[in-house]
């Protein structure tokens, strides 16, 4: 789950990271009032959970409260990569002399949190990684001992900081690391951390991505979820305990198991089709869950055929077959379908489908080819 910039920065501030003293507005009048309070020039920043806000025209500088109101009017309601802007953050502009990148992620190879830093801030770290990998510094942190003081100061010197900036940076990086650990984040990032004209470090932009599996520990953070982060069908699926991701293709897929679901999408493409979704119904799904999943797939108007691929281990094929027929009673449809059910209780499952004249296949390749042919109207 992603947090907005303003939410992330407020969390960082609790850990001693200096941030601009801004406020969030949902109307142009509020934006005006906030800008007036701040006094002087402000930056009006759209709060949407997607990168590239600036390029899309969602971040603009206003010289005074009048202009802030005008810009807020433009930006609120704007569509940025399919997301509607509902909030803007009004921050005082910063006098930027230099920009630094700092972030914390999990290093899968070392199985530890790792701090990533670069003196080339203000651009996406992936771009720096590609074009100038030597500019990126990495510090692995033992999660038991935490970030040591010497690691923090060494990193400051590695980034070319000197004098009073070293102490400031040490405090900020320790705060960022602690925020990462305490929120069970999978990413905590400040980009850029700027050096201002009055020689201070300031976190101008920030981002936190939380580990969904740890949200139960943080009900306060879980409440911050922006429903725009997911499509309505993805949200419905999550609440039903299904793993669903909408894609752009025409063949709906319902599979048990994440690896098999991915492989099923690949096989659909191998035979010339394109998958409309990733959908893992998980282990041990019952008829009701299958029915819910089918309704979610059918909400996508692009779906021209549906492929069921079930390899029953914990999941029982007869339950899945019952679920398919149950869903079709509730949501009648003309979309053609083919099912391939093998594994636990496969004979019972296949019998239930055969009695209902539901098309089935025994091999995955066969099923995928049928689904592709059905989508093409063959």
């Amino acid at each position, binding site marked *: 789950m992603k947090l907005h910039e303003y939410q992330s920065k407020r969390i960082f501030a609790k850990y001693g990271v200096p941030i601009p003293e801004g406020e969030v507005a949902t109307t142009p009048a509020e934006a005006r009032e906030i800008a007036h309070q701040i006094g002087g020039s402000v930056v009006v920043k759209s709060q949407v959970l997607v990168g590239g806000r600036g390029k899309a025209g969602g971040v603009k500088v206003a010289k005074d409260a009048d202009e802030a109101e005008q810009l807020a009017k433009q930006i609120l309601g704007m569509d940025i990569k399919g997301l509607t802007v509902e909030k803007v953050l009004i921050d005082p502009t910063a006098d930027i002399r230099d920009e630094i990148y700092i972030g914390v992620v999990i290093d899968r190879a070392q199985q530890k949190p790792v701090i990533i830093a670069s003196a080339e801030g203000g651009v996406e770290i992936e771009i720096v990684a590609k074009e100038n990998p030597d500019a990126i510094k990495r510090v692995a942190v033992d999660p038991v001992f935490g970030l040591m003081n010497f690691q923090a100061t060494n990193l400051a010197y590695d980034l070319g900081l000197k004098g009073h900036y070293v102490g400031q940076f040490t405090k900020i990086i320790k705060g960022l690391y602690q925020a990462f650990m305490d929120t069970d984040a999978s990413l905590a990032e400040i980009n850029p951390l700027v050096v201002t004209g009055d020689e201070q470090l300031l976190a101008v932009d920030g981002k936190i991505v939380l*580990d969904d599996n*740890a949200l139960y520990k943080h009900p306060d953070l879980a409440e911050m979820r922006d429903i725009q982060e997911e499509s309505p069908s993805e949200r419905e699926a999550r609440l039903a305990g299904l793993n669903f*991701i909408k894609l752009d293709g025409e063949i709906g897929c319902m599979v048990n198991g994440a690896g098999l679901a*991915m*492989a099923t999408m690949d096989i659909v*493409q*191998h035979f010339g089709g394109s998958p409309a979704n990733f959908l893992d119904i998980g282990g041990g799904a019952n008829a009701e869950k299958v029915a819910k999943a089918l309704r979610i797939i059918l909400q996508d108007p692009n779906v021209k055929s549906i492929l069921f691929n079930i390899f*029953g281990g914990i999941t029982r094929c007869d339950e899945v077959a019952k679920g398919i027929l149950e869903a079709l009673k509730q949501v009648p449809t003309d979309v053609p379908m083919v099912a391939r059910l093998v594994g636990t209780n496969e004979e019972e499952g296949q019998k239930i489908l055969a009695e209902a004249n539901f098309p089935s296949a025994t091999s995955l390749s066969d099923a995928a080819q049928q689904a592709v042919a059905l989508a093409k109207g063959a």
Partner: protein
Amino acid sequence: MGILVGKNTRLVVQGITGREGAFHTQQMIEYGTNVVAGVTPGKGGEWVHGVPVFDTVKEAVTATEANTSIIYVPARFSADAIMEAADAGIELVVCITEGVPVLDMARAMAYLANKDVRLIGPNCPGLITPGEAKVGITPGHIHLPGNVGLVSRSGTLTYEVVQALTDKGIGQSTAVGIGGDPIIGTKFIDTLKLFESDPLTDQVVLIGEIGGTDEQVAAQFIADHMSKPVTAFIAGRTAPPGKRMGHAGAIIQGGEGTADEKIRALEAVGVKVAELPTQVADIVASQM
């Protein structure tokens, strides 16, 4: 024969009184696994499918000499259960549970670093040495004893490949599901190393997916240390970047972890990569 589990396995089931724990205990016993104990705090003294239940892993080990543990406890207690098993002297811990917080695992791995224990998982289907022992949730009947070792990040996709092998009469030495999370106890190279030195494994199948770089690391290991042929399948060629494909670890991030780069790395060191899961069996057959 095989690796990690077999006739010498003495299994303790952590979370044996839960729905999943009880069901799979029965399945494992029916397959012939030597299940010697169960653990659920507060349920010590009870019996599940003829297996005595203890309050702590330490008590279970003392009373039954269990050497292997399987964990079915809920995600929020899993990291603790792993550490408890390691502390009680268990040699092999298999964590089936899905949804364990990543930072819980980072701390647990730091705890295990100083102990003589191997962890498999979390978020894995477990492992099976056909004809000897099943420590996990894999359907036993699709397996056939033989000489092909399997290692995989996925569950049902592995069943698909195993079924294709068994249909051709090709048996398996051990099939190991290492799990789909970002932090896991045993990685591809650890398992490849065991298969390379197992006299009853003749060739190996590696089933990977998008996310991370473990397949690339495995490719380098295969080039440097493996004499046995390796066949691979990588899931997720059609997966879009930035989206988590079910498994917590299956995500293409910052341009890293795509199926194509993994396939290229494996092919570059002579590993045959199948286009379809069933083709794995054809390639294995051609190398026998």
